[in-house]
């Protein structure tokens, strides 16, 4: 039945060839799959698959290089912006992106992130913020909300002893090297479309050597948050979005 339906005249959507056919290891309901697809579609639509080099982080998306059909390097934890700098400096004409989680980008890789942004490296940083360390089993992240429970803040994040959540996106937006900084989400079709537009813009700015572009995607972690996917998305809207408001933070002066 389904084979009969897939005729050219019926085809309204198909998976981009910039994603491989490998089955993703992400939990059902996780935002990584959508974020991967959006980024891959932008690369496809811009026709830059052969000129793009990606850098995967350490974290849940450590195996991102299995899913993107572009040349990719796996960086040490937090070092993706430095690795991307090395790539971009020897290949200034290629498109270079990093794909990093909150622990990678905002804790262990804080220095690399800030300095790559401050130098205005012509790279795209895709930053997935779900407020938790997913891969290692739900520990407190630099972006974990005040009072939020995790396996290393079992009574909730006490900011007096554990510090405050870090708004890295607002922070790097202050730096002269960044050109376009925005915060988006991918949990609804409307949000996914906005995120895709943002990533496309960022890639187009990269072509013009405008400086660092950072797209934060506030995302869920239903496994780490110990919720169903639907509950997790609702919790994200009610708790994450007030603290990490969606929208453009730094837009180019036209």
């Amino acid at each position, binding site marked *: 039945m389904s084979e009969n339906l897939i005729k050219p005249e019926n085809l309204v959507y198909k998976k981009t060839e910039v994603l491989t056919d490998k089955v993703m290891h992400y939990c059902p309901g996780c935002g990584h799959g959508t974020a991967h697809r959006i980024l891959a579609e932008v690369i496809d639509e811009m026709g830059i698959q052969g*000129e793009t080099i990606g850098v995967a982080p350490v974290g849940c998306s450590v195996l991102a*290089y299995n899913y993107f059909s*572009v040349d*990719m*390097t*796996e*960086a*040490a934890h937090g070092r993706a912006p430095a690795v991307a700098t090395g790539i971009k*400096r020897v290949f200034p004409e290629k498109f270079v992106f990093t794909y990093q989680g909150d622990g990678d980008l905002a804790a262990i890789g804080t220095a690399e992130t800030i300095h790559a942004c401050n130098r205005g490296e012509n790279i795209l940083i895709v930053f997935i913020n779900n407020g938790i360390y997913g891969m290692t089993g739900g520990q407190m992240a630099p972006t974990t909300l005040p009072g939020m429970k995790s396996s290393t803040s079992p009574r909730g994040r006490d900011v007096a002893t554990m510090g405050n959540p870090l708004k890295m996106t607002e922070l790097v937006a202050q730096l002269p090297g960044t050109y376009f900084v925005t915060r988006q989400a991918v949990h609804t079709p409307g949000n996914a479309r906005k995120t895709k537009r943002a990533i496309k813009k960022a890639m187009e700015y990269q072509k013009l050597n405008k400086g660092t572009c950072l797209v934060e995607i506030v995302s869920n972690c239903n496994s780490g948050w110990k919720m169903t996917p639907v509950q997790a998305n609702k919790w994200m809207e009610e708790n994450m979005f007030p603290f990490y408001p969606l929208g453009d933070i730094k837009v180019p002066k036209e």
Partner: protein
Amino acid sequence: MKELRLMKGNEALAEAAIRAGADAYFGYPITPQSEVIEYLMAENPVERTGMVVLQAESEVAAINMVYGAAGCGKKAMTSSSSPGISLKMEGISYLAGAELPCLIVNVVRGGPGLGTIQPSQSDYFQAVKGGGHGDYKMIVLAPATVQETVDFVKLGFDLAFKYRTPVMILSDGIIGQMMEKVELFEQVPRSTEEPEWATVGKKPGREHVVVTSLQLQSEEQEKVNLRLQAKYREIEKKEVLYETYDCDDAEYLFAAFGSAARITRKAMEMARAKGIKVGLLRPQTLFPFPVEAFNKMADQVKGILTVEMNAGQMVEDVRLAVNGKTKVEHFGRFGGMIPSPDEILNALEQKIIGG
């Protein structure tokens, strides 16, 4: 064109990097090697050869920039001194694991900790025995002169690409800071090759390239380990370099590398003048170590004294090489102190001849 110049070790090293056709240098200032990046910035090689130079925010970032550029199939390098090299160890382990070629220079100063800015050889273990995590080796080249520093830059890149492995030049504060006559080799053009393992952008019809040191399946990781070990055995077989001095009639043997070997040669002259027949074996590669050469000398001599600017590190490898055939003792000064020829001769007489 070959060219004679009087140059400081660190500056000669930087000039050699440009001439070796390096594509990229990433570094961070630290005494006693800051002249490397200063020379490169002044020379602005992007105009001479297209080589890029960047001052990173840390040694950690610098080695990871090397990782990114090396993954692109480019000739990438960094340099630092002991505390900075400790910071690079994470990246070096990843470079070895992902089998990426690169050149790392350690102009060694005394430690541990912040230690001293004076010369030392106390990073022998770190360079030769791993330093970073996991079962890996680097090829380690130990120059004793400014000339050898220059020549090892070229050799280091060649070996790095031949074996797809990080290569370290283990220099020290003496060689880095002193000026000597040096013959510079001719400019090697930068390579335009795109190795099949490099991230250069996916070509139609080929799989996308992945540079990684991650294998989640133990069976796969063991395969990687076996491949690395096979590579190291081949390096041990083919790439050993050393020099011998007055070994033909030697009854005793000095073992020393780098700066310590230079001072030891003076001690040899003094010993010979006193009628003591002593030779010197100077490893130029610390990994691979000249095991055979030491083993052979052990059949001939009555004892071996290693002279090192550390508390006794290479002495362990010499003992392993001679496997109990002859007595092996160590003499060292450390903490930035440099042994005098008198002290070395005295140590030979006390620890080996009289001992």
